[in-house]
């Protein structure tokens, strides 16, 4: 245990201390990453309840495996890697349960066909419209957009995180963006909203 305040310690230090069973260090690491991991998982999974359940699994795995972390990658890449795998597990669980690919439809959020698209846009604003349009993308596409646009990870890092070739990362992001644009237009998005 060092005398430095936990909040001043590096991710690496916190992880290694958590790996030795230091709960305080783990808690600091948890709070440092909780928002980003939640945002990543909800981009991937869409459903808040499933996201929170999955997040418990991610953080328990971080605790259990912290002692094995050797610093070959950044702590953030390591934690996001765990979240990626747990997210995939959750998608599989839900798909096998529902006999269909993960559906993010939420009755409340579904577009009311009675409204004209323009009304819908004005009611919901850009962020809500984008959230709605994202739901029509596949989990893979939502995930790469999140990592490239929000986490701003280089494509090399996304490639190793998702374990897919670098060219696949580039084409997937490109294609996901095209799809998203199409869905946004279908929901009444216009360029003047930006």
């Amino acid at each position: 245990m060092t005398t430095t305040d936990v909040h001043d310690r590096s991710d690496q230090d916190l992880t290694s201390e958590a790996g030795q069973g230091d709960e305080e260090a783990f808690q600091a690491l948890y709070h440092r990453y909780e928002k980003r991991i939640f945002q990543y998982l909800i981009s991937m999974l869409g459903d808040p309840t499933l996201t929170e359940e999955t997040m418990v699994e991610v953080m328990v795995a971080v605790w259990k495996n912290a002692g094995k972390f050797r610093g070959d990658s950044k702590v953030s890449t390591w934690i996001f890697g765990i979240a990626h795998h747990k997210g995939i597990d959750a998608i599989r669980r839900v798909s096998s349960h529902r006999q269909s690919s993960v559906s993010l439809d939420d009755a409340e959020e579904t577009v009311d066909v009675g409204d004209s698209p323009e009304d819908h846009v004005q009611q919901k604003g850009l962020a809500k419209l984008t959230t709605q349009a994202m739901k029509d993308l596949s989990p893979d596409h939502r995930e790469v957009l999140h990592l490239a646009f929000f986490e701003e990870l280089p494509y090399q890092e996304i490639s190793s995180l998702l374990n897919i070739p670098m060219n696949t990362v580039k084409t997937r992001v490109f294609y996901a963006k095209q799809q998203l644009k199409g869905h946004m237009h279908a929901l009444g998005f216009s360029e003047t909203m930006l």
Partner: protein
Amino acid sequence: MNESDQLDPSTHHEATLLPWYLTDTLDRQEKQDVETHLPNCERCQIELDEMKRTRAAVKASINEQTGPSSVVFEQVMARIREEQSSAETTIQRKSHTGPNLLKQIQAWIQSLFTVPWVPVLATIVIVGQSALLMTNLGNNQTLPDWEPVVPRGIPQAPSPSESHHIHIIFTETATQSEIQGLLQLIHAQIIRGPSLDGAYVLKISTNDLTPIEASLETLLAQPTIVRSATPANE
């Protein structure tokens, strides 16, 4: 996984770099390529503009998510404490011998395969011995009244009531992390191998009812990692 990720062949290579041009995460050469290309290509200029708007919209959408509720934190801490106390109980019971000990040896051997990807030559020796052990000890065992716990280890695949087996040969260039990632993705463990032709046998837990075809498809979609994968009858 994503057959749809094929691009129109007329798409400029520079266009696919634009997301990272925007976040300034390209290397110097690539950044320069984009900057040389852009002034001469109207299509990529439009693409860049759209990419900027889409990115702003995606960021706005994600920023609406403020984070998990405090219940998540409480559940995580409860689980951690639960695991700690059960690990302690297990250590106390460790003095038992008989089938439990064999089960622990088996778990230990399997952890060799699932966690670090030991260099192939070293593996051959271990695997030769462990394959014998597993065939001798692994079958027809009654489950002990408690599960051996490998404290603070990578979570082992759950013991499914049923499992699939796959014969797999990895490419020579596949790295440890690629193989590990792929196995985690399909919930597989290496249970045997390598044979003389370099083949391993994977066991896939099927408690999530994923058909074996789906696992094979996932494996074969990674030709840089997997040379061949076929169902194995066990």
